[in-house]
């Protein structure tokens, strides 16, 4: 293998590895069967936990912080509730205070951790 090919291979691999490290990995399946979705949230059915090679790097996050992992040639998105992750961190920063003008909010805006309203994409 020429040096050029090695360099190209390294250039392709290292960023991917860094990306995976940035998003963490799925280390354990918590259910015998896992629900899967596409990046838009359409259900893709269920896969057996044994079909997932663990640990597997997280390649991205979908709508509602679903966890994207490679499954064969495709990326499928899992529910965080169904798997145990390591160093997983979605791009999210709380905006509770900034989102509310003084005196404008119901108390229950703070009733719990909320959902998308509590997060904005990290810049």
């Amino acid at each position, binding site marked *: 293998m020429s040096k050029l090919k090695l360099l190209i291979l390294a250039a392709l691999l290292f960023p991917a590895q860094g990306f995976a490290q940035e998003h963490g990995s799925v280390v354990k399946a*918590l259910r015998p069967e896992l*629900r899967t*979705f596409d990046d*838009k*949230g*359409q*259900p893709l059915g269920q896969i057996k936990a044994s079909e997932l090679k663990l640990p597997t790097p997280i390649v991205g996050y*979908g*709508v*509602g*912080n*679903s*966890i994207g992992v490679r499954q064969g040639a495709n990326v499928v*998105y899992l*529910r*965080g*509730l169904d*798997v*145990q*992750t390591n160093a*997983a*961190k*979605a791009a*999210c*920063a*709380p905006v*509770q*205070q900034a989102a*509310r*003008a*003084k*005196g404008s*909010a*119901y*108390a*229950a*805006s*703070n*009733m*719990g*951790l*909320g*959902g*998308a*309203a*509590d*997060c904005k994409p990290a810049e």
Partner: protein
Amino acid sequence: MISAGRILKALAIGLMLAVPAYVVSKVNLFGLESASDRLADQVYQRITAADYGKARQGQNAVRVIYLDETSIEALKGYGWTRFPPTYEQQWTMLEDLLYAGGAPPSAMFVDFVYMGQGGAADGFDTFLAGVAGATHAEVWSDKPACVSDPLSKIACIIGAGGVPIIFAKPSPADLDLFTDVQQALDKVSVLAPALVGEEAYPLITDYGFYRAKAVRLGVHQVDISPAMAMYAAYCLRRADGCGVNDFQALKARAAAALNGHSAPRAPNLAEVFDAPLDVVWGSRPDPDYLALTKAVSGRPANCRSAASGWRARVFEQMAILRGPGSGAQQECPYTLSLGYDRLVGGQGLETRDVANLLAGRMVMVGGHFHASSDWIESPVHGQVPGVQYHAMALDNLIEDGVDYRRNANAMLDSDLLKGFLVFALAVCGVLGVMVRNSLLDEAVAEGVEPRLRAVVYAPLYTALFATSLGVVALATWLGVAYAHRSPINWIGLSGVVLAFLFYATRQTLPADLSGSFEKSRLVRRFIAWRRLYAQALRFEEDRLLRPKPPPAPKGPAAPPAETEPAAAPAAIADTAEETPAHVQA
């Protein structure tokens, strides 16, 4: 010092005040009286909210999992692409809550009212089968003793090893309807009327329906509220039955019914839980909630700092500083609450967090939808979703058991109590003023210097006012702490007492107090200003009520002379202020 005649006079005056007070309470013109009662309760709660639930028994047991607009948006990533979600999707949610914690919850209340099926593809059969499996309905649903009343049903579900699932339904007293979906759910779970009053949270309701109507509306003898149903499940799982013998009896009855033996008569828990609950709100957020928020969002919860005593609560509840529900920072919920989408996304949540949330807990599922009408006013938090109200009611029952705070207005004639208090305070006030007059007589007889009289009067007036307010405060505290009743209308009573005392001493109080200090230049100047002010006020009054001209002398009539209108009454008043006056009761 005080003759029998004077005592009779004091009693007559007390009666004269108490009877109109009672009538005004009963008439409740424009709802002012009930609004005043509610306000007194709310202010009392705001002051004492930090002291509620120090043992955290309720906080450790109760959890709220909610859906709101942002949850629904986030759940699009998990196939929730319509609203309301399908029955199948909702069953997925309930299944998660039942099994994701590693162990099932002790009981679950679902604060969504299911009226009808959404269609063949909606998955109602899956939903129903899932609920039936969770409650082990196949074990108990054919046992008559298990379905005779909702409490027996819960006991049988627990006896069969299932998880009691309580679904909300409209109150049969409000809606004469029991749909097919509700009938199907009723066979495998428990239905509880969730549309409860804000002022009084009912526990066990006997509608008094005749049998045919009760059957048609799915009422099994009585209905129990969601908090009561959850509390029954909580107690039935405890070895001591929360110290209530009837829960032990219920447990034994369920065991007999499940084993095919003849079940004994169902205990009457309505005798123990004999009045509606006056929900007490706590202000300290659950420490688990604070920890969870920090773990998920990476920073502390955006809550107001909790005041830690009644003095701090009084200070912080001044509206000008921050009233309930105002400001960018809100009171955080008392009960640990989590959006379902957060649970599904799992971000920042460890497995142990999920277990802490769900396993063995009393889980209440409900909506926090801003666009819905299911909101109530909490005196401590401002507007809160209805499910938080049920959670707080359950928390009250877990904390206080059978000594829960009963809604006094709903169980006894609190107006009579208030009337009696007004009577007693008026009598004491009048007797106090009579004592003052006797002291004055003695002082005048002995030629005591007027400026020394304050030595006698100051303690008298202080005792009079402080005792009256103290009696109201004591009656309020005793009622709450020992009689377990909602606070009496202490604001109204204090207002009436102060108004009466100030009216009764309107002449003597300034004279007695200023009598001691009248040699002071500052006090003399103040008295002069007050006379000027009084003079100015009298000006218009005297023009309206011009003094009658003296009777015309016989003989040729002379034209009436122009007189200074304010001179005569002012002179009389000034003269009256110079000498201490007796009270004209």
